[in-house]
């Protein structure tokens, strides 16, 4: 049984993630209406939101410590929030500010918070090998930290994922691969591009346990993840865990979704893992006041983080030249040397 306190914590993080993205959406659309221009507004560039996927993130990350590594893909906010990434500095990064996690260099697909061992990458499945590497480091150092790689179901056809499964299995690494199955890879439905219906079946070929949580139920995810992460923590090897989630929105902001049927979208909207957990909490006797208090706290935390982010200074143009290396080799210049060709020619 999952304790009521734990359920409230999961609920709080799910609300935080959902509300956070609703706020980001508003900010993102500023300056992009009526005509959508991806490069306009306070948050430019692509924005991939994860509404409908919160259960997977919180159910898994609530078993993790700050020293357990998590890698997330291009759709990272819910995972980052569940992992305890600094919400203010993450927001500042998304707004491209100097005090952001990456000083405004990374943006929303490239968030790094080493304090809680979190990183993400915009290249499909490429978070898998580094997660295995973090697990390898823990093993070599005899530490009991574990690692988790999050990926979408579209990523299970990618070499980096499949190779990582084998690498982790053959070295018995303490890593869990978590597939968030939202049925879609941009416009491509899962059945068009993958021959197995159940992505966790991939595990069998790598001699590791594969578990599928068939509904986006935070409690079911929490329980399944507990087993998988426990196995890793006890040095009993890797696990592949797939969770059915739902894509409530387009692939990215601005996605016209002309490829998606109304019925599919409505079905995704009809099932809300947050409502489901809320009903569960009510069954546990949590009353409206308590639920409201959790919601209020989540929302004010988000509002505060976003307000803080928007007050942060923009980077200077010249900041672009820093951080290519931590130890800039001598001889690397960012200035073009003055070179007088006319004189060279004249000397000849």
């Amino acid at each position, binding site marked *: 049984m999952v304790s009521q306190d734990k359920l409230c914590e999961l609920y709080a993080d799910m609300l935080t993630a959902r509300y956070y993205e609703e706020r980001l959406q508003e900010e993102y659309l500023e300056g992009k209406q009526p005509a959508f221009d991806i490069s306009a507004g306070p948050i430019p560039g692509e924005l991939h939101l994860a509404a409908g996927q919160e259960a997977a993130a919180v159910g898994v990350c609530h078993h993790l410590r700050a020293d357990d590594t998590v890698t997330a893909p291009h759709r990272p906010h819910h995972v980052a929030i569940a992992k305890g990434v600094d919400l203010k500095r993450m927001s500042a990064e998304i707004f491209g500010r100097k005090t952001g996690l990456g000083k405004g260099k990374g943006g929303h*697909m490239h968030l790094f918070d080493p304090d809680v061992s979190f990183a993400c990458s915009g290249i499909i499945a490429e978070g898998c090998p580094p997660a295995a590497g973090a697990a390898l480091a823990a093993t070599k150092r005899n530490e009991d930290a574990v690692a988790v790689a999050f990926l979408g179901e579209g990523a299970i056809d*990618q070499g980096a994922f499949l190779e990582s499964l084998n690498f982790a299995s053959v070295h018995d690494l303490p890593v869990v691969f978590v597939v968030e199955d939202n049925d879609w890879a941009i416009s491509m439905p899962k059945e068009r591009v993958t021959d197995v219906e159940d992505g966790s079946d991939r595990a069998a070929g790598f001699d590791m346990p594969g578990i599928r949580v068939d509904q986006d139920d935070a409690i079911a995810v929490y329980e399944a993840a507990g087993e998988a992460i426990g196995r890793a923590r006890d040095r009993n090897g890797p696990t592949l865990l797939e969770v059915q989630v739902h894509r409530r929105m387009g692939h990215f902001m601005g996605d016209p979704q002309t490829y998606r049927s109304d019925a599919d979208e409505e079905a995704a909207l009809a099932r809300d893992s947050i409502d489901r957990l809320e009903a569960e909490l009510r069954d546990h006797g949590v009353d409206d006041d308590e639920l409201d208090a959790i919601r209020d706290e989540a929302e004010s935390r988000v509002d505060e983080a976003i307000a803080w982010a928007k007050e942060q200074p923009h980077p200077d143009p010249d900041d672009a030249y820093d951080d290519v290396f931590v130890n800039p080799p001598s001889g690397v210049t960012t200035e073009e040397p003055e070179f007088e060709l006319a004189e060279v020619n004249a000397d000849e």
Partner: protein
Amino acid sequence: MSETDEVIDRELTMSRAMVESIAHEMREDEEVFYMGEDVADYGGIFDSTQGLLDEFGRDRIMDVPISETAYLGAAVGAAQEGMRPIAELMFADFFGVAMDQIYNQLAKNTYMSGGNVNVPLVLTAAVGGTYNDAAQHSQTLYGTFAHIPGLKLVVPSTAYDAKGLMHNAIRDDDPVMYLFHKRLMGIGWMPAPSGPKTPVPETDYTIPFGSADIKREGADVTVVTLGLHVHRALAAAESLAAEGIDVEVVDLRTLVPLDTDTILESVRKTGRLVVVDEDYRSFGVTGEVIARVADRDLGALDAVERVAVPDVPIPYARPMENEVIPDADDIEARVRAVASE
């Protein structure tokens, strides 16, 4: 500058022009097919296959798994069987996950077989920044692909060029990389500058590879560039004209083969060369163009400058991205510098 004399009223966006030539080639030759992620129902994230599914069906406009090594490699294999696949890498930045198929198979099989095998594959990919998509989705990587022997490399800057170059690419018996700049495509959600939308003939026509195009004639300074920066260079040329500096803008159109003759001819006229590139500065297009000119006729060069991304990954935040990706002002400044030498 259009190479046809007939008057054409019909203007197309660059993406429509590309699609038109692909559709033409697919009608003419059943062996042509298109593979990529989100190319069927979506019509290509950057509109590169808009409408093609309806006409040609799923057998010829194929959505593929996110398995770039497998499908780019499969395109290599099908091409070696004599088919004429077009395979799309959604962003050039993603080439890393399939680098071997590109660098070691596609580019080299012809040579290693002593010319007994050929690979008539067109590899299309979106390139470029200017919309704050950060380090993994904004690169142009022209130099990376031009560096490896065995790949022809096309970078259109207008709808007219895009169509003619695509016809040529599909008909070519060698591997061709066709890199289109997102900003030029005319996508609804990413406004293009006005330049790339041009008159385009309805009939098919080819633009030979290795034929750079003088997009603007000028007597004082030669600007050599490609892709999006053709338009930025033209904008710079307009404002410099007001200062009395007459700029010639040379659009390379293909990097492999590189039309050194046209560049040289222009430099011999102006004596002043500015090479502009959206790729990283070191070991790339700018250095190569300057080296070719210097090799062939060092004496023709009175002054030279280059404008490119200063060897940093593309940063996300607007002030930093604007700093590193050359704009018309950066080009103007370098042109002024050579003009005053």
